[in-house]
Each structure stands twice: as C-alpha cells, then as structure tokens.
C-alpha cells in the first residue's frame, strides 16, 4: 500500500513537472522548425539545387521534425539517476536484486517515454503537420520505422546505462555524461544528416553505434533505404544492443561484487 501511495505521489509531482515541460515543448518545437525552415530555405535557394546530399527541402525539414520525435521517444535519463543514486548511496537497497536493477530502471524509463509520447510527441507531430506537408511513407516503411525506433530506444537505453555505471568508480559523472551527450548528438545525425559528412567519415560511422540511434530510423521513415539494405541495418542494431547489454550486465555484476560488501 505504501509503495502504491509513493508511486501515485510521484506521478503527481511528475504531472506538475511536466506541465512546465509541456509548455516549453509547445513553444520550442515550432521555434526550432521555424529556424530550420528559414535557414535551409536560404541555403537551398542560394545553392540553386533541389536536392542536397540526398534530401529535398521538404524532406530535410521533415528530417528535423523526425529528429525531434525520435529524440523524444528514445530519450533516456538513467545515467543521471544512477549518478545521483550511487553518489548518495541510495542505490544500495536496489543491490538486493541484481538483474532487476537494470530492468527496473528500464520499465520506469518506458513509463516516462509513454508519458512523453502524449505530452511531447503528439503536439510535435501536430505542429509539424501544420507547418509543412509532411511526406507519408508506405505502410511497409512505416513498420520498418517503428521497428528501428524500438531498437534505437533499446540501444540508447543500454548505452546510457553503461555510462551510468561509471558512477561506481567516479564520484561525479556529470562531465562524463555531458561528453557522451555531445558526442552522441553530433554523431547520430540529430543536428545534420550524416550524408553531409565526407564519405570517409560516413564509412566510419557505419561501424559506430550512434547512427543507429537516430539517423537510421529517420531514413526508414523517409524511405531512403532499399529493401535489400533494410535487413542488415536491423541486424546491426540488434548486434549493438547485444554488445551494450552484455557490457552492462558484466560491469554491473563487477560493481555489485566490489561495492555491495564494502558499502558505497
């Protein structure tokens, strides 16, 4: 009963916290789209081309709208929670159940993302549709988009969880988290489509996990991949998920052994 009350209280507080978030997104999204609209509008017209690095103007604006949506749906904050919990020692009680710490936080994250879907994603989609004629993919590609989106979410979760684990060894991980966010933002294609990078870079990116967290799902929606290319991409996403999952479990067990006895 106590736990239930606690959860309700938290949901309540969340509601209040999200109220502010809600209004900020409501203003932030059209703001961002306006910026990109004007910026790229002038770039496209100045260059005189209708397609730049594989994207038309409409597709590019849609790209940014999608980038926001994918970002909202795959956003994971566990490294911040872990940083705080581990620093303050609160995490020790979670130690009693090793594996479920990973999944426990996962379910909570899912909960937040579901809430975000209603509060942030739907308004974003509505605003985007209001601004531009958003291209709609075929059902097949939309399904591909959804699948790659779920994989992207899982991938981001385990990667972020691994970053959070460093808190067992470093007192403060705020700086480390910032670096991870910066690298990720740059390399996952959230700020500019990866096709704008020199070819040599694009090849390297294919071997890094980042593009599979945002760039790939967006491109599925925009139908930029052929059917032949689709399956290998899913496979690579799954491989990266596996890699980070294994690292997470392995490192977590190590942390548990090292600290559960001594106390954090």
């Amino acid at each position, binding site marked *: 009963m106590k736990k239930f009350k606690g959860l309700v209280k938290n949901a309540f507080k969340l509601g*209040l916290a999200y109220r502010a978030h809600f209004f900020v997104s409501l203003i*932030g999204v059209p*703001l961002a789209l306006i*910026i990109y609209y004007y*910026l790229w509008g002038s*770039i496209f017209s100045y*260059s005189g081309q209708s397609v730049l690095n594989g994207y038309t103007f409409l597709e590019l604006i849609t790209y940014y709208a999608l980038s926001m949506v994918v970002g909202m749906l795959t956003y994971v904050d566990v490294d911040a929670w872990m940083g705080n919990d581990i620093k303050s020692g609160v995490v020790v009680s979670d130690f009693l159940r090793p594996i479920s710490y990973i999944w426990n936080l996962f379910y909570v994250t899912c909960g937040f993302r579901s809430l975000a879907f209603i509060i942030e994603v739907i308004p974003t989609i509505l605003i985007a549709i209001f601004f531009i004629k958003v291209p709609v993919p075929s059902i097949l590609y939309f399904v591909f988009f959804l699948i790659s989106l779920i994989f992207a979410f899982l991938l981001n979760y385990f990667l972020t969880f691994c970053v959070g684990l460093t808190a067992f060894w470093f007192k403060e991980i705020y*700086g480390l988290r910032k670096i991870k966010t910066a690298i990720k933002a740059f390399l996952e294609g959230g*700020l500019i489509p990866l096709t704008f990078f020199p070819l040599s870079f694009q090849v390297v990116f294919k071997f890094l996990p980042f593009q599979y967290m945002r760039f790939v799902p967006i491109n599925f929606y925009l139908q930029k991949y052929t059917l032949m290319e689709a399956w290998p991409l899913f496979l690579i996403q799954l491989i990266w998920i596996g890699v980070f999952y294994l690292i997470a479990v392995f490192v977590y067990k190590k942390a548990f052994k090292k600290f559960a006895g001594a106390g954090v």
Partner: protein
Amino acid sequence: MTRAGIFKKGMQLTLSQDMAYKWNFLITVIATMFKDFIGPLIIILIYTSTSGIPGWSLYEFLLFQGTLTLVFGFGHFAFVQIPAKVISGVRRGTFDKYLLKPVDTLFYLTAIATDWDGLGQVAVGLALIIFAFIKLNLAISLNFWIYVLLILVAFIFQYAIMVLISALTFLIVQSWALLDLFFKISDFARYPSSVYGVGLRFMLTFFFPIAISAYYPSIVLINGFSIKLLLEAVIPVFVFFILSLYVWKLAMRKYTSAGG
C-alpha cells in the same frame, strides 16, 4: 572598496568549489568546449557540400559563431549561476540565507555566481574569432573597437536575462522551465538575423535583443557601422536591462511579503 573585496572572495570561493571534484571539473569543461565546436563543424559541413548561407562567407559565419560562443560563454561564466542558485534556493527552501547577508541580495548573488566551467566556452569563442579574424584579413580598426563595445553590450543583455529569469522564479512557479525556454529561444541567435524574414527580424531586434548577441557585433566588424545600427543594437538592451532590475525589485517585495 569592500564591494570589490567581496567579489574577489566570491570568485576565489567559487573556484575552490568548482575544483572540489577536479576530474569532473576538467571533463565538464572539455565537454562544454566539445559542444561548442559542433556548431562551427556543422557550418563547415554545410559550406563544403553546398554554396552556404547567402550573404555570409564561411569565415564570416565562423566569426559570427565565435562571437556568439564568446557571449554565451561569458554569460555561462559570469551569470548563469544567478538563476541556478535562486531556483535551487527557492525549491529547497534555503533561499533565505541570501537575505541574511549585509549586502544587497542581487549583488551578493552576482558576486558568488562565477561558474568556472564557462571559461572553456569563452576560450572556444575567442579561438574561433581569432581564427576567422585572421582568415578574413581584418584589421584593428574603429570597426573593431565598436565590435568590442557591442560585445560588452551583449554581456549586459546576458545579465539582464539571467536577472529576469531569477526574478520570475518568485512570480511564477517552475521557472526552471523558463531557463530552458531561454536557451531554446537563444537558438534563434545561432543564425544571423538576415536569414529570417523582416517581421521576425524586427521582433528579434526590438522585443528580444537576442540579435545583439552575435549579429550586430559581427556585422559591424565585417561591414562597418552606422549610427542608426548602433542605436538599434544598443537601446533595446538598455531598456531590457532596466526592466529586469525593476522586475527583480518586484520579486523581492513579493518574496518578503510571502515569507518564502
């Protein structure tokens, strides 16, 4: 003069505090610098595969971005801790301790607001400016000094915004969202006003002197200035500055009547 003494002590203490976790401090500075290089990198990417942004050559745009980074970096270094401390203090019920000091509350908050993380950003901004300056073959002319002056005006604007957000914490609930919003709106400043339509430009210049941050100084350095331009750039900022101090006074009055 004791005011200077208090400021000096405040900077000393904030430095010690920021360095309390040495590694984290270093990494945070590096992370922030990293983030600041991303903007210019993206611009370079755009300029290598397209004709770029009309009216701005690559190095002119980098100058613009460098100026922006410098201004926001200084805002981070000198002012962003003001709303941060106010919001945290109000939320945790510890704000009163600032009111127990024998000096003006805003002055005290400003004196202890130094965030040494921000130096990284300032460094990146300066590096970009110097780089672009050299590539553009600019000289230390009158334009340059007006440029410096306008940057100082931009610093004042940063201060005014931070004070305003802090003040609004007392007048509105959850103003950390405002801080968020501020940075979102600041995104507008990331690109030159000439990119936006006339209406938006007017709004940016007169109702929200964001443009002062990077656009006006850069334009002056590259193209020269006119008295009209200067007035457009400077007057809205000073009006805004005075407004922010006034709202702060209001906020303090409300807080002392409600007792926090």
